[in-house]
């Protein structure tokens, strides 16, 4: 299930708010299931300033490459070295061990407009309905 305390984008990224206007971002379980085995991550360097919805990286699965967009604006504090070294962790545990980037949020109010978990559950159900596996 998609964690209740996270916020979601229509592009299937999540952000988990942390105290002090920080947040971890990653991709949803639905996204990893669509991508299949992930083998390479291209993530932004710490210190990079990013704007909401901007493309900040690439995710390569065995089958295809897809873009990573940031759900919020801010400064990259760190990237998940474990996910870089062993990208399959994003498939196995997309919401916890498989996080991608940690941000210092410059506009924390941006999160208010993102989907909550109920809304994302609904989107996911609709997409799975449209293309049944």
């Amino acid at each position, binding site marked *: 299930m998609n964690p209740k305390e996270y916020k979601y984008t229509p592009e299937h990224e999540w952000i988990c708010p942390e105290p002090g206007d920080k947040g971890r971002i990653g991709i949803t379980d639905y996204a990893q299931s*669509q991508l*299949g*085995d992930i*083998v*390479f991550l*291209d993530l932004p360097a710490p210190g990079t300033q990013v704007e909401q919805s901007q493309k900040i990286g*690439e995710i*390569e699965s*065995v*089958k*295809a*490459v897809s873009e990573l967009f940031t759900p919020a604006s801010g400064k990259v504090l760190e990237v998940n070295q474990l996910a870089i070294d062993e990208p399959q962790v994003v*498939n196995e545990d997309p919401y916890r061990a498989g996080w991608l980037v940690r941000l210092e949020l410059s506009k924390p109010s941006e999160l208010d407009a993102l989907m909550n978990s109920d809304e994302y559950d609904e989107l996911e159900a609709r997409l799975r309905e449209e293309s*049944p*596996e």
Partner: protein
Amino acid sequence: MKLSKKTPLNKVHHELKARMIDFAGWELPVWYTSILAEHRAVRSGAGMFDVSDMGRVWVSGRKAGSFLDEILTKPAQRLELGSSQLCLLCLEDGGILDDLWVYRLGADRYLLVWNANNVEQKLDWLLRWAGSDPDVIIEDRTRDTVMLAVQGPDVSQLENLKGVSHLPRFDHTQTRIGDIDVFAARTGYTGEDGFEIISDAANALPLWESFIRQGVKPCGLGARDSLRLEAGMLLYGQDLDISTNPFEAGLGWLVELDNGDFIGKSALLKIKRQGVRYKLIGFQMKGREIARSGYKIFKSAQEGGRVTSGGYAPTLGVNIGLGYVLTELATIGTDIEIMIRNKPVAAQVVNKQFYKRGAQNEPQRI
């Protein structure tokens, strides 16, 4: 909108919750559980692919052999009964219409197995050259048969295939699996030992299930692609097409120019004499970026070619690919750059047989 064709096993794939995609007009599974897991099953055990999208065309009649010799780059009549060979179907200008397997079933009876793309064009081509000759009968039975590729080092120990485990590589026979009549050939497209099995579409499900019961893992198009790429095998529509000729594709060994005449021969003789400008190469990435089909290849900031296939090599743990480069860049050991998202990324030309059955199979030292 054109609806995808469905193989006789379409329902099974859906029941297994495979991720389905359109491939050359067919709805096929790209993976069931994971491309990597399916790839490894074939390298270390036994995997099974629904390859019913491959075209299956029977050519028979008194002049079947001489007809095939006119249109194929390697004489079919020379094949012994029960054996097979890979060869090419070329246009008059030497462009490749397809690569295909020819199996000799009888004195005047052959089976062609070709790729799923351009099927109408290929059938038209055959019918055009066969004309109205009553001694050449062409039957496309793709839609009323099923084809399975059962591949991996353990397949000859399977109960289902014990009866054909004596078959030498590339040989084939008519046999039974349980009470099902099948055609079984020791061929494949994975770089492993394996069999390709053809039967009536009505037998598809019992055949599939009997292999499942023996522990064979269903594998999708994703693994089919990564396995063939590791083994350095070309994919028509990607590494080969009508605009490529056999010599630039490194397939000169499939073209016999010193025997009889065939369509495209004079053009191919000329191409061979003149030499080619581009050559198909294998490359290995130095870092972790993946080169995908269509990416440009550079050498010292000069464009020198393009990638036609690229991906992760699960057995080797590195990223590999195939592409065409200017002949002066085609030597093994040449450093090249692949333009990935506007960034030149280091790679090296290596032997394109990245994976070889029975060998050490480590990444090439670059």
